[in-house]
């Protein structure tokens, strides 16, 4: 009985956290949807961990708890992979931006030099 209290409280708190982050616009919707779906799917299991026992039995897994543990692990793995992918994409984007900034700075310096040729240095136009 104690276990289900622990897991149910935890699942509710986590779903509330996701909702709060969403409400404050701290979480992009594209990630939030995934987390919400996972949270809502897992929450009932917190209240009754034996719900999955029949499914686990059919799959040849000893208990529902082990099945949850295993699928949770796979899920975390996929999520980290997805984050690595997103980071790579972001890095490529920031790189391009950095190059763009450098090009613009160079261009600006060239324009300034040409302008300085027309007007005395220090003149405000």
């Amino acid at each position, binding site marked *: 009985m104690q276990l289900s209290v622990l897991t149910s409280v935890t699942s509710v708190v986590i779903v509330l956290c996701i909702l709060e982050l969403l409400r404050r616009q701290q979480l992009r919707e594209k990630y939030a949807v995934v987390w919400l779906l996972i949270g809502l799917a897992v929450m009932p299991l917190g209240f009754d961990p034996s719900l999955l026992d029949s499914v686990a039995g059919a799959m040849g897994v000893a208990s529902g708890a082990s099945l949850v543990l295993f699928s949770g692990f796979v899920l975390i793995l996929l999520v980290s992979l997805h984050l690595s992918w997103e980071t790579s994409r972001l890095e490529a984007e920031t*790189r391009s931006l*950095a*190059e763009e*900034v*450098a*090009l613009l*700075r*160079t261009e600006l*310096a*060239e324009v300034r030099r040409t302008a300085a040729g027309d007007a005395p240095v220090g003149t405000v136009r």
Partner: protein
Amino acid sequence: MIGERRVLVVLPAWNEAEGLADVLAELAERLPGADALVVDDGSTDGTAGVAEAAGAVVARLPYNLGVGGAMRLGYRYAHEHGYDVAVQVDADGQHDPGYVPALLRALDAGADLAIGARFSGEGAYRVRGPRRWAMRLLSAVLSRIAGTRLTDTTSGFRACNRRTIELFARWYPVEYLGDTVESTVGAVRCGLTVRQVPVAMRPRTTGRPSASPTRALVYLLRAALVLALAMGRRAPAG
């Protein structure tokens, strides 16, 4: 202008303030017709100031991107400003500008990418152990796909014509060894002609080379991985 061509020498520089003035002075003396672009790769010393004082155009990256990022910026600049030839030279003085005319002649002879290579007659540069195996492996594979003998595929002393500048401005690998090995593989797979020109490298005046058996072994493994990935990836859109 060198001959009929507008030539841009690109020098990727990361904290090279110490030797940069000499390198730029030598460039101006040996290649008076060429423009110099120093790509300041997020230096924390006076690299940009030294380069400006020496009369080079400076492109300052807001933070360090590595040689690959710095070079892609160089090629983008060359492309946007309509240069006919871009020559890549290290900012630490290892590359002798006296060999640039030889690289330009290789471009005239039909190469799209001319690599200044050690181990091909000139100079006395020697390496041993895993680092040597790595270089052998790279040379063997790249020579095969390029259809010409390439003995020093990790050389950063190279010259590109317009076609190659156009490709590298759009596509230039930024990861480890990408600026040399993968960029060469990409150029070959886009149908560009790669040739090498024998050059002698000078000992570096500043900085320290990385050499220990463990690091050499890691280098071998990384080189093999980079090569495998470069071969396995889709060719850059030509």
